[in-house]
């Protein structure tokens, strides 16, 4: 017969399903990405490109945009599930909750990384950013995104079944992600040589955040699916 | 002048908020215990 499926097999299955859904619906591409670019434009309108504030604030504005886009992506990702009762169905199939969680996190991370890549191009073009210290930037982007997805998946699933999810998800998630915003922004500032210190401690903090929430989320997803 | 105002203000806010909360909780407890039969009123 079929050999028993492990957590990582479930995760892979889940990630593939999510990514396929995204490829077909193209919400990320068609809606969240334009929204993100729009936010970059709005910042330019608000902060006036000629005064130099925009250039100075680029890392922060970039990550704030990513956070807002992440909230939208999460709401979409879990909104689908709850509408069709898919989360309940998944639970009944006997898939390991940790596997479902990790699968969702994987898909989210990939989607967000793609978004960030395009946004990076946007920022280079619109805000005239020159990318220096690329290794640090990449590590920061990866760890920060992993943390955002890891923490976001927990609250995304929790908020999915609430009527007021549109207002509750940002309220719950964004304070939680404050250290990610701080660390990612400071790290990027260092990388773009705007600060004279090492950026790797910030990357380490982001790594710890990601690790902590991925672990916590894996344990919390069972009670979350069953009771919350 | 601002100094005294802030100091007094801090004490007023602290005592006021905690006191109001205490009053709300106690009054709520009284109101609820009247709707619940006596043997169910306490956890212990």
């Amino acid at each position, binding site marked *: 017969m079929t050999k028993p499926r492990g957590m990582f097999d479930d995760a892979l299955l889940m990630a593939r399903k999510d990514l396929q859904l995204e490829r077909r619906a193209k919400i990320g591409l068609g809606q969240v990405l334009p929204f993100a670019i729009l936010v970059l434009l709005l910042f330019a309108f608000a902060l006036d490109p000629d005064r130099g504030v925009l250039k100075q604030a680029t890392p922060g504005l970039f990550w704030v945009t990513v956070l807002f886009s992440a909230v939208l992506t999460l709401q979409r990702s879990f909104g689908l599930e709850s509408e069709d009762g898919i989360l309940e169905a998944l639970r009944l199939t006997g898939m390991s909750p940790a596997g479902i969680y990790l699968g969702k996190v994987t898909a989210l991370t990939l989607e967000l990384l793609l978004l960030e890549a395009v946004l990076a191009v946007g920022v280079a073009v619109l805000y005239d950013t020159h990318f220096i210290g690329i290794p640090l930037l990449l590590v920061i982007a990866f760890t920060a995104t992993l943390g955002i997805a890891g923490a976001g998946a927990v609250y995304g699933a929790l908020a999915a*079944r609430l009527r007021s999810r549109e207002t509750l998800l940002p309220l719950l998630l964004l304070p939680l992600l404050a250290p990610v915003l701080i660390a990612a922004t400071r790290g990027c500032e260092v990388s773009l040589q705007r600060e004279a210190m090492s950026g790797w401690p910030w990357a380490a903090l982001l790594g710890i955040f990601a690790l902590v929430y991925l672990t916590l989320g894996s344990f919390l997803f069972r009670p979350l699916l069953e009771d919350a | 002048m601002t100094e005294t105002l802030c100091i007094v203000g801090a004490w007023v806010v602290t005592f006021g908020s905690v006191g109001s909360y205490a009053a709300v909780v106690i009054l709520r407890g009284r109101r609820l215990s009247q709707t619940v039969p006596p*043997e169910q009123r306490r956890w212990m």
Partner: protein
Amino acid sequence: MTSTKIESSSAAAPAPIGTGSRGTKVLGATALFFLVLAVAYGLFISPADSQLGNTVRIIYMHVPTVMAAYVAFLITALSSAMYLWKRTEFWDLLGSSGAEIGVLFFAVTIVDGALWGKVTWGVFWRWEPRLTTSAVLLIMYIGYLAVRAIPADPKTRATRCAIIGLVAVVNIPIVHKAVDWWRGLHQGKTVLGTIHPDMGGTQLFAMYSALIAGLLVCAWLFVHRFRAGFLAERASELGLDQALEERRLESSPAAPSSRGARDDLGGPQT
């Protein structure tokens, strides 16, 4: 329906009205005693500080409230973990009480800190590590309370809140570290760098009285809030039982069948 262990140790005594008891009266009286001491020494008897001047009198309250808030949030954290393990109503009630009391004391802490800042720095707010971390923490726990307020099955609500409680508490050291590193670059006089070892005599006495008073008040509030929460659960159970009973009576064979139980369970649940 969670089972509740009710000991009828006071079966012979008259049924209690409200959440008070001899225990809370003793606790409350002791707290009041220390409060009076704290007010007397804090506001009047102790002298102005050598470094802080009269603003130290705000610190006499700022420290107790932040300690009480930490204790409350710690209890919420432990209760959240215990609830996810044991699934008993006790831990849920304890955790939610802690979140509410913690938010109260924490908000007061921030206001006190802002007023202290107005006098010392001239501004209500400065992005110094403690205040910044506090702001983030406060909003996290307000989120906890927001989810708590959503009408839901007790088990569902308890699980949701326990998850939030755990996720939030784990974040505290991380936020602390991030903000410290960040704002540590722009070091200024922090609010809590104000408890210096030169504080002696009546000042120290005022500080300790206030601290003991704060913790006692916190404990006292906990008991009342826990009991009030317990009563609320019993009342809503009764209300539900009553509604079901009414429905049952309505849907006798002769009468047309009625709709169903109250639709106050929030969210698009299956």
